[in-house]
């Protein structure tokens, strides 16, 4: 038919154009190998020496979506770096409040190569960054510096490595925590030092709190995809085929429909909703309603990101919540406890999370060199420690955890958030390096699909089977489009 004939003829033209584009597009380092291809392909060289001859300071623009306390910490780190040398000027540019937005901006800027020096995105971008053709894989820069990659936390390293190539230049590790109101626990007759360790226990505790009339909807939860992923990965369940995306073949389909763990999880949410225990919050970008639910004591239990720790601390009283023993000094009157992540079948079953920094290969070499120099700074033990203390991101440089200031922080000196993050760090350490999390090209669409499925379950009237079937369809279509879009 006309379409196929036209396609056939235009494929030839398109192939030629693609070759042309690859040859002419952007900087010299555009030849990064897409994932799944021959691992023997040479890595592009990292222009580490390009800074030596600069006469004027090089501007390194960093796209990010940080807000609140992590943003303040980032600004402080950038100022510190800028003041410490005069060859590189780092400039931060906020791209909005959600990773969705920065992904969109990134994709929109891709064709014209109008990209900054560094892009900070969340941990799900690995595959698409690798496939984009505009990223300088950090592996080559680390190798150029003679850096021993064993210094990195091994789960983080395996999570961010595709076929032996490590892509992000630095990463702030995040994980998940259970926050709970200990006063509510006491009022409901529950042991305030014994938070739930499984979802079943969570439901029991929530029911007790509700029955005691302490809170009407005790479990606050932002309905977003990443926690679902944590539960599933933690339970050893793959969400896509091809070995959760890390296998040698092409990833072509989701493994959601009929996924036992997924069905169990969705049924659990359904149960919580039906029992009136769930205070579900839609994941509108830039909102923090789930924290507000805890702050206003409308709810008692929250499972959320560990990187919220310092923000929650700041938000709740503007003062440090001191008193590890349990009588805090804050103005909000909240006695907040923290527990490990209650998995589907046991405690502490999580996957990798956080943010990742990618250096673009489309800027002039001097800029790339400048960006890498800034990354060296961010990978220093001091910067990694500071990022933890102020921004709640756990270091991927394992040695940073031994820093005395960090050790003290973990012990709870200078704020209860430290003890909380110790827990999160333990969780990171407990992840199986061989099953660190999925690797998906169209990860944003995958997340949209999961979020929509859970939305339909919780805010609409879909059953777990229906919701997951919808997600399966959407993810399959997204994967097909992603793979097909490589023409």
């Amino acid at each position, binding site marked *: 038919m006309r379409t196929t004939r036209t396609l056939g003829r235009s494929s030839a033209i398109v192939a030629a154009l693609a070759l042309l584009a690859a040859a002419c597009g952007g900087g010299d380092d555009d030849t990064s190998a897409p994932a799944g291809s021959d691992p023997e392909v040479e890595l592009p060289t990292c222009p580490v020496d390009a800074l030596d001859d600069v006469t004027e300071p090089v501007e390194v623009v960093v796209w990010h979506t940080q807000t609140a306390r992590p943003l303040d910490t980032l600004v402080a780190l950038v100022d510190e770096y800028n003041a410490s040398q005069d060859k590189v000027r780092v400039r931060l540019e906020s791209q909005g409040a959600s990773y969705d937005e920065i992904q*969109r901006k990134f994709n929109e800027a891709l064709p014209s190569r109008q990209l900054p020096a560094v892009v900070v995105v969340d941990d799900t971008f690995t595959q698409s960054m690798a496939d984009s053709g505009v990223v300088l894989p950090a592996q080559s820069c680390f190798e150029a510096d003679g850096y021993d990659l064993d210094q990195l936390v091994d789960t983080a390293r395996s999570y961010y490595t595709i076929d032996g190539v490590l892509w992000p230049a630095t990463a702030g590790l995040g994980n998940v925590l259970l926050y709970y109101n200990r006063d509510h626990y006491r009022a409901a007759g529950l042991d305030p030092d014994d938070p739930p360790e499984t979802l079943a226990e969570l439901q029991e505790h929530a029911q007790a709190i509700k029955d005691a009339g302490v809170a009407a909807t005790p479990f606050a939860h932002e309905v977003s995809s990443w926690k679902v992923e944590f539960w599933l990965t933690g339970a050893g369940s793959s969400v896509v085929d091809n070995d959760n995306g890390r296998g040698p073949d092409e990833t072509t389909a989701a493994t959601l429909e009929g996924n036992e763990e997924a069905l169990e999880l969705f049924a659990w949410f359904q149960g919580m909703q039906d029992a009136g225990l769930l205070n579900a919050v839609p994941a509108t970008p830039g909102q923090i309603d789930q924290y507000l639910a805890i702050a206003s004591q*409308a709810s008692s239990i929250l499972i959320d990101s560990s990187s919220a720790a310092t923000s929650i601390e700041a938000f709740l009283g503007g003062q440090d919540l001191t008193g590890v023993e349990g009588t805090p000094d804050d103005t909000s009157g909240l006695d907040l406890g923290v527990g490990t992540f209650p998995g589907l079948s046991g405690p502490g079953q999580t996957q990798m999370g956080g943010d990742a920094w990618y250096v673009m290969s489309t800027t002039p070499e001097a800029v790339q060199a400048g960006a890498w120099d800034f990354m060296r700074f961010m990978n220093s033990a001091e910067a990694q420690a500071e990022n933890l203390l102020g921004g709640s991101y756990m270091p991927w440089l394992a040695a940073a955890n031994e820093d005395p200031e960090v050790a003290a922080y973990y012990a709870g000196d200078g704020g209860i958030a430290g003890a909380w993050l110790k827990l999160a760090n333990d969780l990171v350490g407990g992840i199986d390096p061989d099953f660190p999390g999925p690797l998906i090209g169209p990860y944003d669409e995958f997340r949209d699909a999961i979020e929509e499925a859970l939305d339909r379950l919780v805010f609409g009237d879909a059953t777990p089977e229906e919701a997951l079937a919808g997600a399966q369809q959407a993810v399959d279509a997204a994967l097909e489009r992603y793979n097909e879009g490589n023409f």
Partner: protein
Amino acid sequence: MRRRTREALLGWALLVPSAAVFGAFVFYPLYRLIDLGLHEKNRFGTAERYVGLSQYADVLSGDEFRSGLSVTIRFVLLTVPIGIVLGVGLAVAANRRLPGIKVFQTIFSSTVASSVAVASVIFLVLVNPQIGFFGDVRYLSLAHTDSALRGIALSAVWANLGLTFIIVLAALQAVPEEIDEAAALDGYGPLRKLFRITLPLISPTLLFLVVVLVIFGFQAFGQVEILTGGGPARSTETLVYKIFNSQQPLDQGEGAVMAIGLFGLTFVVSLLQIGLLERRVHYGS
């Protein structure tokens, strides 16, 4: 040069600035949109292939466009009728000679000062399910798929109040006093006068208002982005919201077709408006 030619040249010359702007930012984009709709781009935006009208057929009959259209139309239905009723109500109440009436008139028109962003930020807090003053009102809840659009509509209705009030008030004030007096003499009570005489007299204005508010409704984007981000479960994604989020290379073909679809919608409404205006001209004579 002959005077006629000079005048013609001058005429065209005076149109050039506007025409240049329209050419560059209205007609040329329209052409590009149509072209975009006929093609599919690769993921990086570096190549495209021709797919023809099949994309138009697929997208216009597909779920995305249909749901966007339905959400947009629902939004219009939620904001326009009640907006007009409230505007008329406020205008009728404030259209009387009382000392200090100007103060009330200024208050009623004050929402004209709030932009989409301001109104949305204000209502985000008001209707927030956790901490909003009206957070418990299930009917308007932004956290449920059946009610989220109503919450958004509320902020739009409030924001449009000022404009609606100003326009209806002006129309009411243009009604000659003799008619009021005649109605009173004929024994018309205030309600009967309102419905039987006043409203019919200002009906051209009301029609105009309907068209303006409908067009505002079609353009709904900022409110959706700030209040719900299109959720929950994408139940509040208007057409413009979907179009705005189709700027990545892989989505552009689809987005362009949806934009053409939206154009079709505004075309129909504009035709209606022209038709109604024509009628009004005859009305006047």
